């Protein structure tokens, strides 16, 4: 049985939402702190850390607010295909970043 089919207690949902909001507040603060901190010269480490925190944030929303932690197998199947194609899209993007056509002039 998925989460949305179980009997609902409004008070327990309010508690869950309060916890989720506090964590979102903390993760957002952590992202901002990371962005303004001095972590080396470049942006690579900062971007990696900030996106990692954003993934935690996204997991909370998807897992608890969208009930993805307890969904039906068919939904997971749809999402598995989505993840596969999304990774393919981003993989092609990374692959293309170094694929300049012959004769390209760099500024």
């Amino acid at each position, binding site marked *: 049985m998925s989460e949305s089919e179980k009997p609902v207690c409004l008070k327990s949902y309010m508690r869950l*939402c309060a916890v989720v909001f506090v964590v979102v507040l903390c993760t957002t603060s952590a992202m901002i702190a990371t962005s303004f901190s001095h972590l080396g010269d470049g942006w690579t480490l900062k971007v990696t850390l900030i996106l990692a925190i954003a993934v935690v944030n996204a997991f909370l929303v998807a897992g608890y607010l969208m009930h993805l932690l307890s969904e039906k197998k068919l939904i997971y199947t749809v999402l598995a295909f989505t993840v596969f194609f999304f990774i393919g*899209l981003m993989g092609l993007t990374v692959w293309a970043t170094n694929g300049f056509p012959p004769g390209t002039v760099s500024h």
Partner: protein
Amino acid sequence: MEIPYTVQHRPDTGIYNAKLGIWLFLASEVMLFGGLFSAYVLLRVGAEPGMWPHGWLNVTLGTVNTLLLALSAITTLLAWAACKVRDFTKFKIFHACTILLALTFLGIKTYEYRDKLTHYEIAVASGPYAGKFVDGHFKEQSADFDFAKKTGTITLHGHAVEDRKELMDLRSPEAQAAKHEEITIAATDIKKMGNYGPRHNTFTAIYFTLTGLHALHILGGTLVIFYFWAFGGAMWKTDPERFTNRIEVSGLFWHFVDLVWIFLFPVLYLT
């Protein structure tokens, strides 16, 4: 004719039709935004060294919008939970909160857009700022100002820099220390001028595209939620279970819109 499986689960899928439909739609949305994020990555890594902007967007406003959307996602979930326990009054209260939060988000976004569209960069050819770039917010212009005809003057509140690269990183100590003042330039001295709209550079182009598309999703979602809030009472009386499922489906869309913002905020405002 009755639409099948609006409440009952289909034996083969195990869920009602609208739920499978919204998840398939969200999957397509992931690829839509994924394509634009892919474009962002290509534009960013392809930018000349030192020419990708940092600190151009207001982090405080972005943070407020992040929290507004997180709160609206929570009130959406609580509105659905209220339907599940058959408390229509609480549903109305929670969804009213969602609508207000969404409208506030859009109001802040409009303010941010206005800020960018009234922010100008002027390449000066002659006069006291010859060879410099004047950057700042529009203050006023003379009645006869016409850039094409080269008549009149324009006044910005900002500062002048020697190298355009100095305008890219607004978090740098130099940019933070820059003194902003009112600068008046004659149209005859202007070589090139433009606001920070989508045409300004690749950053503003992808910023307006990504946030504009996201704002359209917010607007669409708000309209749907408003419809259920204002006119949902009739279905609630006749078929509360079906109405609850509609709220769940619209809620899933709303959470997805929140998810997109969770990545837009750090990518555009913080990095």
